[in-house]
């Protein structure tokens, strides 16, 4: 289990980028209501940072080529991205947002 940030740091409607030392890659966090979603921050197409992208509902649109990734599944809705980004199970422990080190593809 890796601690990412305090729950209070996540502002509704924005994407927060975290780069925890224990994980190989940066992550993007989104809080929607009571739930927190966590996916890989790097787009599965090229090297864009999804936290620079646009959040609409459960989708983050890549800032570069506009593939939209579903926060729940990691799947893109249209090309150029074809592969999903990794999705991580989030738990909140004592006000800290945490993930398991291994995400699911």
């Amino acid at each position: 289990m890796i601690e990412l940030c305090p729950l209070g740091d996540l502002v509704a409607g924005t994407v927060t980028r975290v780069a925890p030392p224990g994980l190989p890659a940066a992550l993007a966090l989104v809080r929607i209501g009571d739930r927190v979603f966590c996916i890989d921050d790097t787009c599965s197409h090229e090297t864009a940072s999804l936290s620079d992208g646009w959040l609409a509902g459960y989708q983050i649109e890549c800032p570069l080529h506009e593939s939209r990734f579903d926060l729940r599944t990691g799947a893109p809705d249209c090309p150029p991205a074809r592969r999903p980004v990794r999705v991580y199970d989030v738990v909140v422990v004592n006000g800290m947002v945490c993930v398991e080190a291994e995400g699911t593809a």
Partner: protein
Amino acid sequence: MTVIAVVGTGLAGIRAAETLRAEGHDGRLIFIGEEPGRPYDRPPLSKQVLLGETADLALLDERGEAELAAEWRTGTRVTAFDPHNRTVRLGDGDRLNVDGLVIATGVRPRTLSCDLPESGVHTLRTLADATALRDDLAGGGRIAVVGGGFIGCEVASAARSLGHDVTVVEAGDTPLRAALGEPAARLLARRHIDSGVHLVTGAGVHAVTGGRRVTGLVLADGRVLPADTVVVGIGAAPDLTWLAGSGVACADGVLTDQWGRTNVPGVVAAGDVAAYACRTGRKRVEHWTNARDMPVVAARALLADLRGEDTTALPVHDPLPYIWSDQYGSRLQFAGRPGPGDRFTVVEGEPDGPFVAVYEHSGLVTAVLGVDSPRSFTRLRAGLRRTWAS
């Protein structure tokens, strides 16, 4: 059984085919494409491919291809379409009867009208073009790029980062002016010079010298520019010769309405080839996102037509234009449709580093330009989309 032929196996063709299947076309789907091999994506050709970097070019993976369940006639050109008998004629003499036709034949690069040596003069559109150019660049020497559009700028940037001596010859005042307007183009022109690329502006090409192999250019003002490799990036145009006599209305492209429908029932066009009706009159757009999105609209309209349903209830193709380009280690992003006299203001950053600029007309933002500033660009583009939609 309904038969639909898709002519052209580029991005627009693939997207049309995927949409036809997704929307329930369960008849025959026939792909006819002049280029051999499997469908691939073009943007990396002037970027990663020239640099010898790995890039995933495939537009379809094995699963996607299986799901399409299409018949492939690649390496074959369509030479004619007869709308009365509804047949397409292929270069190998075959004739196919079709109910629906998707025209997704893209564009072909223009080249110089003067005499050209046999080797060393390139245009860049296909994977074959890109590998030929990459092989020539490996020989080193002096590279002349004719034309300062997006492809010319990207090729110059790639050749320079491979360590070559590069000159860009641009007939106008500054590269990228047509696409981005004068003030933005001026700011970006400095990046060529800062990267050590020579920039010659206001100069047309009078002749290309060389016997078998190119030796250089003679410019309209008499200047001689030695070159071992010449890349011509002076724009592109659709090849519509196969539609002559078909009754499909064409001008600078295949003319369509907002749904991608041509004047011939059951025939749609999409991507670089299509000149579509839009809010500002008519547009033919040679950019990736247009070739991704327009075929979806066109394929839906085609199915509605073939099923005798009302097409006009379907969404139209009227996107906020969006372009990106990678040059000199920077990412350019541009969205909107500015007018010629729009006010141009840098609103964030510095012109020689990352920056964001807006174009304005009567106090309204008409376009946004971002250089290495995806986050700010994305926010401004979202605002622009809202205005565009309203």
